[in-house]
């Protein structure tokens, strides 16, 4: 079990990680979700012991490992860049942690062979990493990380530099690789879709703070806060300020709908994900008038950016819906699927969790 207890990281006057506490169970798959500079890599370096926290403690299986150098911990890490030892053959690359660990030759040969088989790089063991493709190079790095029985495996956006097809392929394979192991896996990504595909637990990071932490599907449907919802939405979540009084809730005169039952009167920030805003009317949807800014049509999907009440809105829908930039248009927001956040940002009601979505 990996525990971060009020871990803090400051570099000079900048705070990279604000006091953070997280607990990861053995055999769990954990995702760090956040944009670039959200602190994912720093947090991983702190977990691995590559960096020493300014304050706070790292505990592993009931032992305080805060000051323990990375060499003395049993961790593995795979980076976004394909990091391999260029002067060594593929075999030696994978064997390197075992050699340093003093494993005997026959055992090294057996384990590297098995791992290469699993990673489908058996035919390239005599070659140098630079002679292989990006996908294969990342497989070497992955094999090296998995060949020793680490207690903690850190994957820092390992698929980000791969092309689309390879990424899909490795996404399918990844969870199988960890299947039986009793190690803690931490996977950093910038893409909410990737987090949802892997499931497990997700920590949504924003500017060095954990905005939300819990089972991935759960925090997607019921984010604890507006920030959490913003981190876990791609394209960005639409937000608008609204006031509830009586049966109705309204965000200005043009956007009014029936408030859900049990919602107290007062001010709210409404969050509605892009795929709940469509160019066509659906049952119970509310019209939103605006001016089209850009319409990006990508084969089977339309992403429409438009200017409406409260600022920028994004709509994501199936099918091709051509709009001309600058034109007036009406889009429809399915308010039964929206989030109601209190003025301080905490979630009051989640349409996605309670509604039909």
């Amino acid at each position, binding site marked *: 079990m990996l525990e971060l207890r009020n871990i803090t990281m400051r570099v000079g006057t900048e705070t990279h990680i604000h006091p953070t506490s997280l607990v990861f169970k053995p055999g769990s798959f954990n995702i760090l979700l956040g944009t670039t500079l959200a602190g994912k890599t720093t947090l991983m*370096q702190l977990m*691995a012991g*590559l960096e020493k926290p300014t304050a706070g403690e790292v505990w592993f299986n009931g032992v305080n490992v805060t000051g323990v*150098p*990375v*060499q003395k911990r049993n*961790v*593995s*890490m795979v*980076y976004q*860049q394909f*990091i391999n*030892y*260029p*002067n*060594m053959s593929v075999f030696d690359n994978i064997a*390197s*942690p075992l050699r*340093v*660990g003093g494993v005997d030759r026959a055992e090294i040969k057996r384990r590297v062979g098995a791992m290469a088989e699993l990673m489908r790089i058996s035919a390239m063991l005599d070659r140098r990493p630079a002679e292989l493709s990006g996908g294969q190079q990342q497989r070497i*790095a992955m094999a*090296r990380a998995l060949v020793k029985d680490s207690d903690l495996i850190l994957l820092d956006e390992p698929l980000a530099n791969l092309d689309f097809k390879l990424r899909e392929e490795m996404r399918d394979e990844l969870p199988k690789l960890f299947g039986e192991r009793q190690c803690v896996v931490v996977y950093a990504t910038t893409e909410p879709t990737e987090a949802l595909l892997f499931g497990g637990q997700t920590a949504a990071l924003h500017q060095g703070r954990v905005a939300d932490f819990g089972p991935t599907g759960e925090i997607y449907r019921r984010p604890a806060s507006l920030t959490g919802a913003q981190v876990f939405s791609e394209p960005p979540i639409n937000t608008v300020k609204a006031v509830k009084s009586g049966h109705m809730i309204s965000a200005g005169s043009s956007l009014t709908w029936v408030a859900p039952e049990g919602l107290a009167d007062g001010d709210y920030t409404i969050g509605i994900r892009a795929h709940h805003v469509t160019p066509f009317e659906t049952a119970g949807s509310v019209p939103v008038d605006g001016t089209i800014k850009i319409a990006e049509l990508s084969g089977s999907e339309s992403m429409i950016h438009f200017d409406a009440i409260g600022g920028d809105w994004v709509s994501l829908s199936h099918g091709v819906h051509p709009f001309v930039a600058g034109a007036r248009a009406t889009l429809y927001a399915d308010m039964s699927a929206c989030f109601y956040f209190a003025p301080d940002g905490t979630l009051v009601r989640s349409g996605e969790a309670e509604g039909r979505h």
Partner: protein
Amino acid sequence: MRRVSWLVPTVYILFLMLPIYWLVTMSFKTTNEILGSFTLFPQSFTLENYRVIFTDPTWYMGYVNSLIYVTINTVLSVCVALPAAYAFSRYRFLGDKHLFFWLLTNRMAPAAVFALPFFQLYSAVGIFDTHLAVALAHTLFNIPLAVWILEGFMSGVPKQLDETAYIDGYSFPSFFVKIFIPTIAAGIGVAAFFCFMFSWVELLLAKTLTAVAAKPIAATMTKTASSSGYELGLLAAAGTLTIIPGAIVIYFVRNYIAKGFALGRV
């Protein structure tokens, strides 16, 4: 256009090769022929000049001395520059950029500025006229150059490589020797090449800091010219031989150099 495309490089190369050709043909001529007539090829071909150099210790010891201090200097410069360049490429510390720049400014002063202080200092501590004296003096220029070249190469290696090695369990020294140095081998080759070349061609300090025991070939050449009149054939032969070590070194690092010019910031 087709014809011009080979013509231009050919003319250029001929132009570059002409002085070297002239030096080499001169080395196979007698002094009388050199002074007496204008000839494109040696009329009376002779190896006498080379025989003199390879049999007379005052001549061949010049090469031996030069090679000794150049080798000491190259090894010393690269060994000192490696950790320094690593620090500049991997750590941020107070005044790092200024220190880096200051290192480079050492190269901006002419060697003559340092000749007197070195001469006096080395005489005082008793290493005047030793190979070490010249090797040490040349490190003043070569270490900054080597640091500069190596820093470029090291910064081209992602920091994550270091981290991966630590995660695999390597200690810093074993990572540095087993993984990092092989990774930047090209950079070390380029740095060593520049140190070698600078030290090999530098005359002023080498001449000032030696008398007999460690006298470099360049000093022998200038001295011979002044004492025994015009021995042009002999000097040409010595000059030809002086080019050879450089040519050999270039041959060995040629692949690295090409890679090096692209990768590092030379």
